[in-house]
């Protein structure tokens, strides 16, 4: 274990190496480029492959191919590149190809402000790709957590045979702080399940195990299987049969469900809180400071910080947030995750979105002002 001062993007690359990543295919884009830069340095030295592709579509394509060949594969990008990857993300979900996609959020839409932070891709991460699919999206709030969650992202991708998205913003990407670079034990690094039957007629490539995951051999292991973006049956043959299609779609959704029990939210001083901030990523750190300062001023505030944005941690949300009369959902966008809170909050709870645009993070004072105004006037009046 080493304690070092590293940036978020560097921590992401170091976490990937610790997770056993051996393939990166990407295209540089601010503010994510240092992930690629660091892996361009680290991967070749450690027997891995770094590949710069012609664009983001090619990037994720190369990652999917590498993964099917048995590699632990990833890419990193920002909003515009993430948009270009959405087609392949949907493909990876249906074809069940493990991979990790890092999206370092900047101000958008379009080219926007390439060098300034935002949290505008929360809904893109959820609904960016067409069709009806479940996704896993992790949201770290510190450099330490970026390191740890990159390892977790690989574990989830491998175990559940699915793409996993890690999103954070430009501030977390470039800030440096103290990180303990704990090297995980080999047995804590999950690998995709392998078929228990030998190659041959008895092998059904999309027959799920007890976790709802179909074992995946590497290309070249001797198994014949078809990888397709068409709906398929257990044999991998395209199908239009309603029953087979709905079974497959349900299995792909259901296999993600345990994740909400694995990746728990952070609950900070919520036990007796009258007002709960709901915030993730860098904004959660600002909110945490606001909680302490509000309590010093006599306002009982607390913080609910989802570490997993999708699938939504429903049970914990209701259990932890149920007591507060007011929830202020703070995010650097025009209101995205607030929709989740509105949907899940008890009827008695007032839910308000507090956005921040323009490329500067929320400040502690801004959140304190919102809370103080609400508590003075009473949420109902507003």
């Amino acid at each position, binding site marked *: 274990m080493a304690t070092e001062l590293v940036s978020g993007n560097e921590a992401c690359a170091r976490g990937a190496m610790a997770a056993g990543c051996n393939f990166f295919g990407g295209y540089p884009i*601010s503010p994510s480029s240092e992930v690629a830069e660091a892996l361009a340095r680290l991967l070749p030295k450690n027997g891995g492959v770094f590949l710069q592709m012609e664009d983001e579509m090619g990037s994720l394509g190369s990652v999917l191919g590498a993964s099917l060949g048995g590699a632990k594969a990833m890419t990193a990008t920002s909003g515009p590149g993430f948009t270009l990857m959405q087609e392949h993300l949907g493909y990876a979900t249906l074809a069940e190809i493990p991979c990790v996609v890092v999206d370092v959020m900047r101000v958008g839409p379009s080219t926007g402000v390439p060098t300034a932070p935002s949290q505008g891709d929360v809904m893109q991460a959820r609904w960016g790709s067409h069709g009806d699919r479940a996704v896993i999206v992790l949201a770290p709030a510190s450099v330490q957590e970026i390191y740890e969650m990159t390892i977790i992202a690989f574990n989830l991708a491998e175990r559940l045979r699915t793409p996993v998205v890690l999103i954070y913003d430009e501030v977390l990407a470039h800030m440096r*702080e103290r990180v303990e670079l704990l090297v995980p034990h080999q047995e804590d690094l999950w690998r995709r399940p392998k078929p228990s039957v030998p190659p041959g007629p008895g092998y059904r490539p999309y027959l799920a195990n007890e976790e709802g995951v179909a074992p995946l051999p590497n290309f070249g292991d001797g198994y014949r299987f078809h990888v397709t973006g068409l709906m398929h049956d257990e044999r991998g043959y395209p199908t239009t049969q309603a029953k087979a299609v709905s079974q497959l779609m349900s299995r792909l959704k259901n296999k993600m469900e345990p994740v909400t029990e694995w990746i728990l939210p952070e609950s900070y001083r919520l036990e007796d809180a009258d007002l709960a901030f709901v915030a993730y990523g860098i904004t959660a750190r600002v909110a945490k400071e606001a909680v302490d300062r509000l309590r010093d001023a006599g306002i009982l505030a607390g913080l609910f910080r989802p570490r997993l944005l999708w699938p939504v941690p429903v049970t914990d949300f209701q259990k932890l947030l149920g007591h507060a009369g007011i929830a202020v959902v703070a995010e650097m966008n025009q209101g995205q995750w607030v929709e989740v809170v509105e949907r899940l909050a008890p009827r008695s709870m007032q839910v308000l979105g507090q956005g921040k645009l323009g490329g500067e*993070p929320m400040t502690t004072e801004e959140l304190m002002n919102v809370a103080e105004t609400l508590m003075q006037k009473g949420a109902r009046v507003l």
Partner: protein
Amino acid sequence: MWKKEIRLAGSGGQGLGLAATVLASAALQAGLYVTTLQSYGPEARGGASRSDVTLSDQDIANPWFSRPALLLALNQKSWAKFGGNLAEGALAVVDSNWVEAHEYPGVLALPLEQMAKAELREKIAANMVAVGVIGVLLDRLPLAILAEAAYLKAPKGFERINKAAVELGWHVMEQIKGGVEREHIGGA
């Protein structure tokens, strides 16, 4: 809880990123919590670029601040941009060769670049002289740790110069501090 929000400002290329790295590494070595944030993209070039460092003896919740408690301004532009937005009772260290800032009560004007040039024949080491000055003002980082960090983080060939520059800044600031303290005693 002890916490200090420091903004290092100047023109891109004056070594503010390195100054932040040296302060942060020394703080890490001294067992403190630390975060750094710096201008990114076009802001990091020319004009008024900044490197923000937060030091604390506890976990730092929020690395982002708008009103620093300690400002270093190496040029006029960065003083103009950040000098008007300081925390209450803040201190500012400015390079008197380049910055006109005499009216501000908490300002300490020192000829940082000239000191580096005269003593070390390297005016580019003004950033490290400033680190030494800041070290004394912080009163949390021992000189040995700070000088060692300057040595280890220096670009190749600048190890000794940067270490010496930190020591220079430190000793000059100690003398000023000693003078101020004597004045106080004399006045009372």
